[in-house]
């Protein structure tokens, strides 16, 4: 199957400021490949390089070495982002706009014709249950509502690939469940979802394959069952083992 998201020997080094001018590698030769229709979990502790990888995939930062491709197009080309939807970890939207204005704005960026855009806006606001609040300014929304606007904007172009950066972070159990339901629904529609998360239970439920990185290096990649293997009872235990976590009582 063709990879729709691919990184080849991806290195990212951040230049250090101050007297010590040694650069710090955030990614060390990362090789990833995600096929169409997969739900792919991208896991790692804080500072492992998950967000850096997503930043490279979205063209926010250039790789120091290696390359990344979306649909076979180098991520440095803006056109590579035509068929993707992105949901950032935090809600970063124009708070002086209403939900429908925000969606209309993004629809216009994708060149979606007006009539079609209005249909999609109606459908998406229903999907994320924001229909009653569609004319309210985003600044008046709760965090959960803002996250749901984020999901709607990520889906406005009917993307083939969704990149979600910790989509359930900071949400209450109800909000988390709603986001999970939406991801499940997208999976059933055959969309490819690439998401980073710390909620390992949810990853175990939804994902087809996972990759675990630590200190910028890929530690393992494979099907969920494969990664859990015979020696662990669940993904959390496998994760802790793979990143080399030692409980204090064992030291």
């Amino acid at each position, binding site marked *: 199957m063709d990879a729709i998201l691919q990184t080849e020997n991806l290195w990212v080094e951040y230049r250090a400021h101050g007297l010590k001018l040694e650069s710090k590698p955030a990614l060390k030769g990362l090789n990833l490949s995600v096929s169409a229709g997969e739900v792919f979990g991208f896991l790692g502790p804080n500072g492992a390089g998950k967000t850096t990888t997503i*930043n490279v995939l979205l063209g926010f930062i250039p790789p120091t070495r290696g390359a990344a491709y979306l649909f076979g197009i180098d991520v440095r080309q803006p056109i590579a*982002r035509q068929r993707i939807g992105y949901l*950032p970890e935090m809600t*970063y939207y124009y708070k002086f706009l209403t939900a429908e204005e925000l969606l209309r*704005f993004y629809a216009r*960026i994708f060149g979606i014709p007006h009539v079609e855009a209005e249909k999609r806006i109606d459908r998406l606001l229903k999907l994320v249950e924001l229909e009653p609040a569609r004319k309210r300014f985003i600044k008046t929304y709760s965090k959960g509502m803002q996250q749901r606007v984020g999901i709607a904007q990520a889906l406005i172009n009917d993307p083939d690939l969704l990149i979600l950066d910790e989509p359930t972070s900071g949400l209450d159990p109800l909000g988390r469940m709603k986001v999970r339901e939406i991801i499940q629904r997208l999976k059933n529609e055959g969309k490819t979802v690439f998401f980073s998360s710390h909620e390992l239970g949810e990853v175990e439920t939804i994902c087809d394959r996972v990759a675990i990185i630590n200190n910028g290096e890929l530690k393992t990649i494979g099907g969920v069952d494969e990664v859990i293997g015979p020696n662990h009872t669940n993904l959390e235990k496998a994760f802790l083992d793979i990143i080399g976590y030692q409980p204090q009582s064992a030291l």
Partner: protein
Amino acid sequence: MNTIWALTGVVIKELYRRKDLYVLFVLTAVITLAAGSMEFFHDPNIVRYVKDLCMLLIWVSALLITITMAARQIPAERESRTIFPLLAKPVTRGQVILGKFLGCWLASGTALAVFYLFFAVITGSREHYWPVLDYFQAFLLQWIMLGIVTAMTLLGSIVFAAPSSTVTILFIVVAGILFLGRHLNTVALHNAEPLRSLIYTIYFIIPHLELFDVRERVVNDWGLVNWLDCGLAALYAAAYTGLFLLLTWLGFRRKSLT
């Protein structure tokens, strides 16, 4: 072009949903109204003085709106991190700059048009004289000049750390050009080398914003500037605006977002 117009629309929406524009407009309107309502015993010199004062107010208000609005566009996108979902779409940084520029320029043009309309109605109702073309030409030239100021401010917002620094520096630079720009060559003549060459260089490099100031003509009723000269001034402004936008793009292209 769709992307640029979409960005432009957001900038304009932001402007009319913020309260500072209305405060400035009400302030300008009240002063213009108060000045225009006074009885001066039909003394033409005092009427001219009041008109001059009102036009100065319009110039200052338009510059305030333009500089403060343009200075916060890109820093606000980075600070509130709205730049991330935006650039995750098929949008280039060049389109972001063009969208911001057009948005600010159109918004400042709209505010300027309202100011001029108000000024024309007040003075016209007092003097029973309606030099519509003169006002239109003054508006047009000022708006073209605001294009240069908008592009300069966007460049400043990439170079300087905080929007407040950009606003302060741009105000000083723009005021300096407006008040001293036309005299720099004379100042250069009165200085010895190498200062003379330096002042001459500055004289030839800076955009001469004062070329677009026809307040004196409007106030004294000296008639229209030749439209061909206006066209040349527009080309001059387009060249400087293009240059500043290019420099802004070069700076923003290399700017880290994270």
